[in-house]
């Protein structure tokens, strides 16, 4: 009887060890896949719900900031950029030119800055995105999307991420608009391009 119990325990322990080994191997494979590219990494976020973002709202007066938790409406486009990033700067230059050409978007848009607050303020001193800029401070969310920044996120109902992609120039911005399926975004990109760079019309 004792022998049977011991045998059973040994058998259960062996099977458990085997299951653990398989789980660890699968985990390892997942990690390898996850690191195979920034876009692959953010693809996993499609269909997930964005958390309420803890942000500092960056007012017109750059010195004043207030921390708050924000929820986003359906149809919101969140653009995430960071200082000391060439692609972010290129993106921000284009965005700032569009917004200051008297062509405001007709959909909710937020430009979320990630990084050191002094650097963010320095960057905001160079590019005017007044009324759209927030400083994203929940590190958990930033970590998930870190490699893909600069990126854009389009939100569906209930804060579900419909589409997320790295963007670093006009080509990728237009590709994002196509992929997100938002006619409002596409139309704004076309209108604002004509307004900001009349020679392209």
């Amino acid at each position, binding site marked *: 009887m004792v022998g049977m119990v011991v045998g059973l325990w040994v058998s259960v322990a062996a099977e458990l060890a085997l299951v653990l080994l398989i789980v660890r191997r699968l985990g390892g494979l997942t990690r390898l896949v996850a690191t195979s*590219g920034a876009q692959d990494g953010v693809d996993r976020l499609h269909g997930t719900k964005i958390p309420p973002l803890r942000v500092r709202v960056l007012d017109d007066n750059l010195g004043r900031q207030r921390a708050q938790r924000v929820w986003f409406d359906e149809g919101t486009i969140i653009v995430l950029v960071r200082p000391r990033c060439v692609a972010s700067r290129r993106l921000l230059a284009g965005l700032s030119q569009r917004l200051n050409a008297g062509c405001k978007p007709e959909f909710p848009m937020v430009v979320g800055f990630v990084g050191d607050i002094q650097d963010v303020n320095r960057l905001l001193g160079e590019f005017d995105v007044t009324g759209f800029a927030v400083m994203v401070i929940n590190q958990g969310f930033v970590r998930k999307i870190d490699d893909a920044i600069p990126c854009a996120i389009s939100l569906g109902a209930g804060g579900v991420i419909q589409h997320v992609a790295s963007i670093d120039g006009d080509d990728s911005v237009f590709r994002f608009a196509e992929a997100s399926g938002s006619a409002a975004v596409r139309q704004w990109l076309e209108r604002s391009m004509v307004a900001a760079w009349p020679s392209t019309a």
Partner: protein
Amino acid sequence: MMVIASFLTAHFREWRRDWHGVQRSIQIGGDAVGASNDANDGILAAIDFETGEIVRSVTLNSPSGFAIHGDDLYVASMYGNRIVRLGMDFGVRESFATRLMNDLHNVIADDGGLLVACSGTDSVIELDYSGVQKWCWLATQHGFRSSASGHRAWVDTSRDYRASRIGTTSQATHCNSVRKWRLNGRDVVLLTLFHQGQVIAVDSITGRASVLLRGMRNPHSLRRAPEGWIISDSGSNAVVIVSEDFWITRIIEHGFNWVQDALAVDGGILVADANNCRIVMFDRDGSHQLHEISYPGEWKVYQLEIASVRWEEGIRRL
């Protein structure tokens, strides 16, 4: 003004089949210049920038980065996996290689010795002038553990990599440009990472890496500029100028097609516009083109340097 330029190959059509891939055959251990297949036949040339005339040239195995120190010119052989020392007459004096040398991209020379970026082994090595390794940093031992293709990347320091074939996608960073610097009171090595699109600072003592600049596509060539640094953002077809503290001040784009190298020179910025087969001079702002010379389409440029007066005289005389 005399420009010394390295061209990785003079047979780019044949060579590009393996561009940033794996070369079909590496020959190693033979003489310094003889052991190379035709596609790896590259050129080191001294060019009169006003006329475009090639004043002196030599055929070498895939010459990539090079550095001048005194009367010597040290050339990294990308696929020969060795450093070749030349004189002012471009004659080969000697060559040497250490075990981590693989897919060499950049060499820096100062009074202390040579600093070499070995892309194949994702490492930076420092050598004295007799070829003895003094210092080494491996990206794979400092957090860069995954190759561009998603596999585990690891470099074993006891292994000899000189005869190995390590494709670009099998490398964790493809680190390709290196500079010594002092940052916040600490000695660091600055490094461009091709796959990550970053410039990082590696602490010389701890080996810890911190990101100074990111968001580039396949960057190369980190160089000093009067206002700070100049970086070739090759894949984005741009030259990036940053301040001393790596704050981006300008992004220069002029219809370039793969900026392989860019350097600040007296009165302007010299750009190696690789796929347009031209070397272009812009004004200091990078807004107006001042002059350009072209070279054969089969040549693949890698690095440019301005010859000092002494070197120019030596090259013309010998």
